[in-house]
């Protein structure tokens, strides 16, 4: 019995572009099975993995919906036409997802606490968190959010895994060195909890994309390592009305707070202005105790979960300071600034600004004299007269130094530059050339003849003396 099966435009691509496929069959189910045997890719499109017709598929026999007859068992006779018609539906509705039986078992320890319970767990499943950064803070943060069953976890990062990350960034592993941080994080999170949707945003967070991105999430968790992005995250959170579970780390100390709640302060209320560029070194320059981001990132996860569940007291209006050496926590009150340029009643910032400029990162246009490590080596070999000034921190000096150098950390330079001989030729280096460039600029303003060493001691170790350790 020859039956015509007619396909909608969207599905013909999976059936050699045919509008119509003729099969011999005696029931709707039989006809579809014969269609699928011929066009296997159609099976995947029309049937779910458990073999049922997908939600968007309607099957008609001539003019009648097969569901109104006997479903797949509906008999067909020679000359009948089976129409496959998609139900075109959708919309902005976010359907509330229910917990599956497997999820109820997985989240048992949450479900038995009345503060969370099945209702709370459902809130977590239907919630979304955006982790800004897949580094030290982002690692424990994303892992615990996934373990807790937060339904949608977004991560923004554009970096690759470096071996020196693994001392603290526990979401990545040795095998992932050199690969995308996002892919590495996704693999780990999916392995931990396959129920969670992981959304990867492989891009630098910018003033152009932050607001649109933040709109799609319920909570933003700031795990960035620089001031420009931190102010951007803050402003975009306030502009989109999203809470910011904030954390930051430095050497042995951490900070934690929740910004951007309706009646609470924002990061700008606490720090209206960024520190001068270069004054506060980042983790790559100053180091960080590997477990510190574990402590702070985990606390950010606690705050994110509390915000979603609506339980406890969010850490808004309070700044917690953690000191790992003292093993102590201090809590400071943070007031909302009635004149805050972003979160006050009359804000002056109504869209993201240029944060690089705001943080003074674009002022480095003044060109400063610079030499390579090879030039430095030649000068040392020729025993030319100059002072080799190292502007790193004392502990860095302990790890690695170029023989004969004088140490004055960049932060101490404004009070100690007088120790330097004004007539001397100064050659200045740091770890990678960034801090020393600032030192050179400062010294030249004070009338010194100062020159920067491009690439710093790391370049020295790489090209001149491998016995000097890189760190």
């Amino acid at each position, binding site marked *: 019995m020859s039956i015509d099966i007619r396909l909608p*435009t969207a599905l013909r*691509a999976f059936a050699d572009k045919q509008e119509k496929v003729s099969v011999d069959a005696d029931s709707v189910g039989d006809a579809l099975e014969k269609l699928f045997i011929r066009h296997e890719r159609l099976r995947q499109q029309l049937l779910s993995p458990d073999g049922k017709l997908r939600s968007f598929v309607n099957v008609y026999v001539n003019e009648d919906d097969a569901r109104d007859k006997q479903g797949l068992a509906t008999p067909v006779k020679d000359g009948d036409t089976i129409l496959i018609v998609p139900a*075109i539906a*959708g919309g902005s509705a976010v359907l509330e997802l229910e917990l599956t039986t497997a999820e109820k078992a997985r989240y048992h320890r949450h479900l038995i606490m009345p503060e969370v319970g099945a209702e709370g767990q459902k809130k977590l499943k239907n919630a979304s968190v955006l982790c800004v950064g897949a580094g030290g803070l982002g690692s424990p943060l994303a892992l615990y959010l996934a373990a807790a069953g937060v339904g949608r976890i977004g991560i923004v990062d554009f970096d690759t895994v470096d071996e020196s990350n693994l001392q603290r960034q526990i979401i990545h592993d040795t095998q992932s060195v050199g690969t995308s941080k996002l892919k590495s994080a996704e693999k780990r999170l999916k392995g931990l909890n396959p129920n969670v949707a992981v959304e990867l945003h492989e891009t630098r967070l910018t003033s152009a994309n932050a607001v649109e991105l933040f709109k799609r999430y319920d909570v933003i968790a700031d795990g960035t390592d620089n001031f420009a992005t931190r102010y951007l995250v803050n402003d975009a959170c306030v502009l989109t009305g999203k809470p910011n579970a904030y954390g930051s780390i430095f050497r042995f100390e951490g900070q934690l707070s929740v910004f951007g709640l309706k009646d609470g302060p924002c990061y700008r209320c606490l720090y209206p202005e960024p520190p001068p560029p270069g004054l506060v070194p980042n983790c790559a320059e100053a180091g960080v105790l590997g477990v510190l981001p574990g402590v702070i990132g985990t606390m950010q996860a606690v705050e994110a979960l509390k915000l979603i569940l609506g339980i406890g007291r969010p850490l808004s209006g309070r700044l917690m300071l953690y000191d790992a050496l003292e093993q102590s926590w201090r809590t400071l009150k943070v007031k909302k600034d009635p004149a805050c340029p972003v979160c006050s009643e009359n804000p002056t910032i109504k869209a993201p600004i240029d944060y690089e400029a705001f943080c003074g990162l674009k002022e480095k246009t003044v060109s400063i004299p610079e030499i390579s490590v090879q030039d430095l080596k030649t000068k040392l070999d020729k025993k030319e007269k100059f002072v080799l000034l190292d502007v790193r921190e004392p502990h860095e000096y302990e790890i690695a130094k170029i023989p004969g150098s004088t140490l004055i950390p960049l932060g101490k330079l404004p009070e100690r530059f007088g120790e330097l001989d004004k007539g001397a030729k100064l050659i200045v280096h740091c770890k990678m050339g960034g801090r020393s460039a600032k030192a050179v600029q400062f010294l030249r303003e004070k009338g010194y003849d100062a020159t920067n060493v491009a690439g710093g001691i790391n370049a020295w170790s790489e090209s001149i003396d491998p016995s000097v350790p890189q760190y």
Partner: protein
Amino acid sequence: MSLKLNRAVEAIAAATCEKAFPEEGCGLLIGPIPENFEAPGRVLAIDEARPLPNGWDASAKTNKYLIDPKTLARVEAELSGTGRGVVGFFHSHPTVPAWPSPFDLTMAMPCCSYWILQVKDGKVADSRSWQRTEDGRSFIEEEIVLEG
């Protein structure tokens, strides 16, 4: 990967969605069926937008749309053999952004373009077009090219 629209198509879709506000508006996008329809890089050239009524109950129309399958079947029959077909769909998201919702993903078909228009205060504020991946797990945004 892109969706080419002409001014008339854009105007009809925008007017349909603005008129439907605060409910969702919807309709079909019709044009030649490209040889490489299922390819992720395919280009669709839409030459007709056909508005259709939102088939949900009144209470659900503010955040859902439904196109009657019988109407769709009728249009497909009308286009049969012409090389043109229903290659995409448009609908509006009143107030909320033009990103596909989980519901959009559950119901999405492969190959087609899903053009979403965000309507704010009765005016189209943003519009984005999306193509479902073949595995059905996500949407990829495609460029909208306005011509003519």
